[in-house]
């Protein structure tokens, strides 16, 4: 019985000339047209089932046949890797690959594959090349998304059944990032990090997943087991491939001893200048001896390298990457100790514990996330040095921001640690002359590769467009301040292509708070961009105490969020408005109490061109909407025709539609309860 139900009309008109019924024949013997009544089932037809079969856990398969074509009976086609490889893949396999949707459609934003964000044109080119070429050195400038391109290509290759097993070898510090990028860009692929104790790793190596991610060091340790297991790999991808530039090293030997049909090497460090560095990477990519004189020509064949300046028009103004790094052993020990004692102290304080106590503990923990106090070890620093080295070779400059300035945890500590990059420091305790000198030195001195700034000092009044890379060594959790700082590098003269890296330490308070705020941020950014997200202002008391699994003491009322805005007294409302304006970068002075008449606050800020913007602020602690009269009252005190003096009317009860309309034409901004608490 055919699955497609159909009937053939046997009364159709046919030529009656003799022999017609035998004139058409199949090869061999379709017979369908001999006569319709005598139609026999064609034998020269076939069907190939290309179903996506759920993994049945078939022990005969080395990997889950998740995308493996099925045979007609619906069972998975087994593939035993110990079998000699057939010279020609089966028709099933060839068709399964050939009949996949074309790459152009798969990579399109409106195509059948959902991508977390639209791929840029140069990234699509990179993905195509990764798919089409078995051996490739992807050497794009840092910040152009090599990981994204590789993850997307792995996804497509796996979907197209061209590969089943992938091994990604990466520095230990970026394994978690790889996992995150794979989850984001190839969500249907199963991925495992090969980490943990030896016993755990044995189990993980044996797991049947699409992608395994391992560090260079772990690979070197486990290489004997990998060889013994005779697991075959379809693709081996080396991230930061310059790690194997020493051909004689154990790591290099281990990596090169793994066989695979496809081999990719990713690096942001230019390699053209060192034949020796190249030799090792080339010998990984193209097994077999290569003569010195041939190395560069072979490199040209397999290297795909795009500089940031070449793809500038494709790039968005700012590309932000959050880098999650694990703490070093020393940091972890110190962090664990402080967390234990700090939490115990908070518990002991009981009802006397305040938000200030919690914030103080958070600050101490954040400092340890930067540097271990005694040894000075820092996983963030180690990762950043690696990235800065790549940038340095390319002649790029970078800005590094930290909220701390101290010799132990902040700007000055970083300055010592990054001495070889010619650091220029910029902090709030420097005189105006010193700051100008620092800015000039960074701009004019080619040896000055990095500028290290305290977030608060470097966030305003600086234009540093010579840097196209920005690192946030720690987070202030205030997007307004962070973007203000980032804007130093792209505001004037460099309107596109700034790469921003934000560090957080895994399994620490930094990661926890990052997650909480990320979940809240989408709500904030829906209606206001530069919203204050300082911890004290953006997390409720419950959330702050909850970070340490503690309940907040009762009767605490230190966060604006815990207060009903409509219950605020006049002075309280003034204070809240002042606080909000300061978070937005204004300097605010309070005018003498006016009892509802004149201006309550005067807020000033300099814009990027140096012009001063002044806000005359009037606060009305009304629970009902303010009407046109209230707007007019403020409008009347504003200098007529001035574009640099504006009014701001604050009213928790909101505004009537007429008032909103009236304010629009008179340079008066309106803040209701939402703006005050967001």
């Amino acid at each position, binding site marked *: 019985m055919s699955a497609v139900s159909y009937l053939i009309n046997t009364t159709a008109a046919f030529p009656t000339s003799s022999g017609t019924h035998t004139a058409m024949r199949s090869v061999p013997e379709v017979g369908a047209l001999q006569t319709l009544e005598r139609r026999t089932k064609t034998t020269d037809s076939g069907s190939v089932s290309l179903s996506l079969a759920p993994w049945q856990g078939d022990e005969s398969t080395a990997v889950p046949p998740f995308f493996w074509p099925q045979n007609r009976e619906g069972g998975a086609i087994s593939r035993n890797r110990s079998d000699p490889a057939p010279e020609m893949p089966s028709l099933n396999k060839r068709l399964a690959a*050939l009949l996949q949707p074309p790459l152009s459609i798969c990579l399109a934003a409106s195509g059948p594959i959902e991508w977390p964000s639209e791929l840029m044109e140069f990234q699509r080119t990179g993905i195509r090349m990764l798919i089409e070429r078995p051996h490739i050195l992807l050497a794009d400038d840092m910040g152009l998304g090599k990981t994204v391109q590789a993850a997307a290509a792995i996804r497509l290759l796996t979907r197209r059944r061209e590969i089943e097993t992938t091994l990604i070898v990466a520095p230990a510090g970026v394994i978690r990032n790889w996992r995150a990028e794979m989850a984001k860009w190839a969500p249907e692929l199963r991925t495992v990090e090969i980490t943990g104790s030896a016993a755990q790793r044995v189990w993980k190596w044996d797991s049947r997943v699409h992608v395994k991610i391992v560090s260079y060091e772990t690979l070197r340790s486990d290489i004997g087991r990998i060889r013994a297991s005779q697991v075959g790999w379809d693709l081996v991808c080396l991230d930061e491939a310059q790690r194997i530039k020493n051909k004689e090293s154990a790591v290099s030997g281990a990596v090169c001893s793994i066989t695979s049909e496809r081999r990719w090497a990713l690096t942001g460090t230019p390699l053209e200048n060192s034949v020796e560095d190249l030799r090792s990477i080339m010998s990984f990519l193209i097994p077999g001896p290569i003569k010195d004189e041939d190395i560069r020509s072979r490199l040209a064949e397999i290297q795909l390298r795009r500089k940031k300046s070449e793809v500038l028009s494709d790039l968005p103004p700012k590309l932000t990457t959050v880098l999650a790094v694990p703490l070093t052993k020393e940091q972890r020990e110190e962090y664990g100790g402080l967390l234990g004692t700090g939490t115990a102290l908070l518990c002991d304080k009981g009802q006397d514990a305040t938000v200030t106590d919690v914030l103080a503990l958070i600050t101490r923990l954040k400092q340890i996330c930067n540097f271990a106090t005694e040894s000075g070890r820092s996983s963030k620093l180690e990762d950043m040095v690696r990235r800065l080295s790549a940038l340095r070779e390319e002649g790029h400059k970078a800005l590094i921001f930290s909220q701390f300035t101290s010799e132990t945890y902040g700007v000055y500590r970083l300055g010592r640690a990054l001495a070889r990059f010619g650091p220029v420091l910029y902090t709030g305790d420097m005189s105006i002359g010193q700051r100008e000198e620092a800015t000039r030195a960074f701009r004019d001195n080619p040896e000055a590769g990095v500028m290290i700034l305290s977030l608060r000092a470097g966030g305003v009044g600086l234009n540093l467009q010579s840097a196209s890379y920005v690192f946030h060594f720690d987070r202030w959790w205030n997007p307004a301040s962070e973007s203000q700082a980032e804007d130093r590098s792209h505001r004037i003269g460099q309107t596109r292509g700034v790469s921003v890296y934000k560090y957080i330490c895994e399994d620490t308070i930094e990661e926890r708070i990052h997650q909480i705020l990320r979940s809240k941020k989408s709500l904030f950014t829906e209606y206001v961009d530069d919203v204050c997200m300082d911890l004290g202002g953006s997390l409720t008391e419950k959330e702050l105490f909850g970070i340490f699994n503690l309940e907040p003491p009762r009767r605490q009322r230190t966060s604006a969020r815990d207060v009903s805005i409509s219950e605020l007294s006049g002075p309280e409302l003034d204070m809240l408005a002042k606080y909000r304006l300061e978070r937005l970068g204004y300097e605010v002075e309070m005018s003498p109490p006016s009892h509802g008449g004149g201006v309550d606050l005067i807020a000033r800020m300099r814009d990027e061109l140096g012009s001063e913007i002044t806000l005359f602020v009037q606060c009305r602690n009304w629970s009902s909407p303010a009407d046109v009269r209230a707007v007019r009252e403020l409008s009347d005190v504003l200098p007529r025709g001035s574009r640099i003096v504006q009014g701001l009317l604050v009213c928790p009860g909101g505004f009537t539609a007429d008032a909103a309309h009236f304010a629009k034409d008179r340079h008066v901004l309106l803040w209701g309860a939402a703006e005050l608490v967001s």
Partner: protein
Amino acid sequence: MSPIPFHGITDDPPGAAGFLRFLPHVADDFWLGAMLMIDAAGEPVEFTYARVQAPSPTLWRPEDFFLTCVRSLAAAIFDACPVAPLVIVCRADEVDSRLFSEQIQVETPIVLISQEPPPEDSELDGDILLQWTIEQDENSPARRLINIIAVRGLLLEPFERAEIGLREVYPDLFEP
């Protein structure tokens, strides 16, 4: 309606669309046909193919000759296909509308696709016209599947894949 109600991780409608492709007069008067079934994501699900060798058309009325060859291929493909698509898609310039109105009665909804020539000086492709042999409700599974396939730019492209598949299955017939 599934007896076990469920929601998938995507809103893609289940089922597959079968793209029926006919290649007349390949070497030695072979006629080839294939049906590539794809799901809403464009992934191939099933590929069914057949060939017949046509005689000299001298004694045939041209329209009958064409129709008969195509009907033979369609029947062979339907016979061999182990799963039924939600909808069968054909190119209007390849399939005489009489095939499914007079020659073969298929229970599966069929949609004939034609592309209008683009307006002069336009860089855009011409409009694509769909003609259903059985009127489909807007929310019918077949219609939903075709709609999402169209949005994803997969309304014409699978015919090319079907030809690629035929070239792989019958390489000898395509050699110069």
